[in-house]
C-alpha cells in the first residue's frame, strides 16, 4: 500500500506506461513539428527537426481561409447546438415517461429502442438515404441535425439510471400541492437529471464533431462542409503540401481534445455506462 514510494516494481510500471504514452503522442507531435515550418523549410529539413520558430502561424492562417475552416466550425457548431439541445429534451422526456409511468405499450417502446440498437446505423444508410431524400433534407444542414436528434437506448439507460435515484416522494409531494405532471418534469425531474445531462451533452458533442459519414453522404455541398468533410476536401486538393495538411489536421483535432481534457470525468462516465449496460 506504500506504492507512492518508488519501489522497483512501480518504476517498471512507469516505464511501460511511458512507452505507451510516447507511442500515442508520436504521430501528433510530428504534426506539431511540421505545422510551423514554411514550405522551403519543410522540404529542406527532416520531419523530426524542430521548426525555426513555433510562432510561425502562417500555415494555420492559410488553412483557415483555403479550407474554409471558419465556415466548417460554424456548421459543426450549429449542428451540435441544435441536435444536442433536442437530444437532451427528447431523452429526458422519454426517460420520464418510461421511468415514472406504467402503460400498455411501455415494453414495446423500450423494446423498439433496444431492437434498433442491434442494427448498426452505418449498415442501414442505403435505405436511410432514400428517406432523407424524400423528406427533401438532402444537402441541407437539417439532414445532419435530424439524424443526430433522436435519442438512443444508451441515453435512455443513462437517464433511467439517474431517474431511479430521484425519490418518488418528491413527485408525490409536488402532486399534493397540485403541481401538474408537466410541471413536475420541468421543475423537479429535468433539473435533477443535470449530472446525466452533462455526460450526454459531452458524449454527444464528441460524437457529432467526429462524425464523417452523415455529412459526407447527406451534405456534399461545399458550403455545408463540417470539420471532417472540410478536411477531406482540403486533402483531396493539397495532400502533397504536408506543412499545410499538418496544420489542417491539428486544427480539426485540437478542439475536441481540449473539450475532452476539460470534461474527462463526464466522458469516462458516459463510456463506462454505455459499455457495462
Amino acid at each position, binding site marked *: 500500500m506504500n506504492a507512492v514510494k518508488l519501489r522497483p516494481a512501480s518504476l517498471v510500471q512507469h516505464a511501460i506506461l511511458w512507452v505507451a504514452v510516447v507511442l500515442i503522442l508520436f504521430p501528433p507531435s510530428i504534426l506539431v513539428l511540421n505545422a510551423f515550418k514554411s514550405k522551403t523549410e519543410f522540404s529542406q529539413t*527532416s520531419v523530426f527537426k524542430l521548426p525555426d520558430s513555433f510562432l510561425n502561424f502562417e500555415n494555420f492562417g492559410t488553412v483557415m481561409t483555403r479550407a474554409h475552416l471558419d465556415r466548417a466550425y460554424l456548421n459543426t457548431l450549429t449542428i451540435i447546438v441544435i441536435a444536442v439541445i433536442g437530444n437532451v429534451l427528447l431523452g429526458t422526456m422519454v426517460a420520464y415517461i418510461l421511468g415514472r409511468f406504467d402503460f400498455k405499450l411501455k415494453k414495446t417502446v423500450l423494446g*423498439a429502442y433496444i431492437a434498433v440498437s442491434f442494427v448498426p446505423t452505418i449498415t442501414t444508410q442505403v435505405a436511410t438515404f432514400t428517406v432523407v431524400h424524400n423528406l427533401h433534407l438532402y444537402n441541407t444542414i437539417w439532414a445532419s441535425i435530424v439524424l443526430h436528434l433522436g435519442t438512443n437506448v444508451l441515453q435512455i439507460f443513462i437517464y433511467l439510471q439517474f431517474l431511479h435515484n430521484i425519490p418518488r416522494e418528491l413527485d408525490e409531494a409536488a402532486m399534493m400541492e397540485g403541481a401538474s405532471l408537466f410541471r413536475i418534469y420541468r421543475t423537479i425531474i429535468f433539473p435533477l437529471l443535470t449530472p446525466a445531462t452533462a455526460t450526454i451533452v459531452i458524449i454527444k458533442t464528441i460524437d457529432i464533431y467526429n462524425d464523417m459519414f452523415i455529412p459526407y453522404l447527406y451534405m456534399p455541398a461545399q458550403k455545408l462542409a463540417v470539420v*471532417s468533410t472540410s*478536411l477531406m476536401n482540403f486533402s483531396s486538393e493539397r495532400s502533397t503540401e504536408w506543412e499545410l495538411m499538418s496544420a489542417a489536421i491539428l486544427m480539426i*483535432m485540437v478542439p475536441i481534445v481540449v473539450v475532452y481534457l476539460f470534461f474527462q470525468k463526464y466522458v469516462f462516465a458516459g463510456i463506462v455506462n454505455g459499455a457495462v449496460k
Partner: protein
Amino acid sequence: MIDSISYGRQKRILIILFLLVPIALLAMFALYPALYLVYLSFMSWDGFSPEKTWVGVGNYKDVFANKEIWETFLHNLVYLGWGLFQNALGLFFALLLNSKLKGRNAYRVMLFMPYIMNGVAVAYMFNYVFNSEYGSFNTLLRSVGLDSLAISWFGSAHAVNHVLGFITLWKFMGLNMVIYLAALQSVPSEIIEAARMDGASRLQTSLRVVLPNITKVIELNLFLTIIGTLEIFDLPFILTGGGPLGASDTFLTKTIDTAFKFNNFGMASAMSVTLITIVIVVLSIQRFATRRWSD
C-alpha cells in the same frame, strides 16, 4: 390551467405528447429504414429512377456467389487479429492502472485520448506516418539502417490491412482499457486484500483472483471487438479507398461502393441485410454465452 385536469388524464396526454416526437424520429430514421432495407434487398433499383423491379432472392444469390465480396472478410479477419491484441493490451494497461500508482489518472487520460480524436484527422495523420517516401516511420527505419523494411505501407497488398489494423489498435485500445478498468474497480477490495494477506503475489492476485471476477466484461469487450471488426469502414474508406486493387476493401466499403458508386441499391441492401444478420447472430451468441456463465 392544466393543473385542474385529473392526474389520470394528464398522464395519458403527457405520454402521448412526450413520446410523439421521439417515436416519430425512431420510426422514420431507424425502424423504417431497417424494414425498407429488407424490402430493397428484393428489388433491382439504381437509387433514383422511379422504377423498382422485383427480383426475389436474386440479389442474395449474387451476394453469395460473389467471391470478391466474401474475400473481404479475410481483410476483416486481419483487423480481428489486431483487435484481439488490442484487447490484451487494454486489459494489461487496466491492470497496471488499477493500483495506487502515482499519476494514474493522467496516464488513463493519455491512453484514452486517441479514442475521442476525429477519425478523419487520425486517418490523415497516419497517412504521414506511413507515407513511403517522407513518412516519419520510414524516416525512422532508414535512420537506424533498416532501409529494406521501409516499404510502401499503403501500396503493399500484404501490409496494408495490418497497417490499418495497427491504426485501429492505436485509436481503440484506450476504450477497452477504460471498460476493463471500470470492471476492475468494481471488484471488491476485500477479496484482493484477503488474497494479498494470504501471501499471494501481485501477479498471482491478478491472474487468480481479479480476472475470474471480470470474465463477463472480458467477454463483452471481445464481442465489441468482433462487431467493431465487422463494421470497419472509415479508415480504408479515407486512406486507401479499398486499394491497392481491392486489397483493403472491407465488407462495408464494398457495400457503400455498390450503392453509391455503382448505383446498385438492391444488391447493396442485400449485403447490408447479410451483415446485420451476422452481427445479430454474434450478439445472440454473446447473450447466450453470458447467460450460461451467470448460471
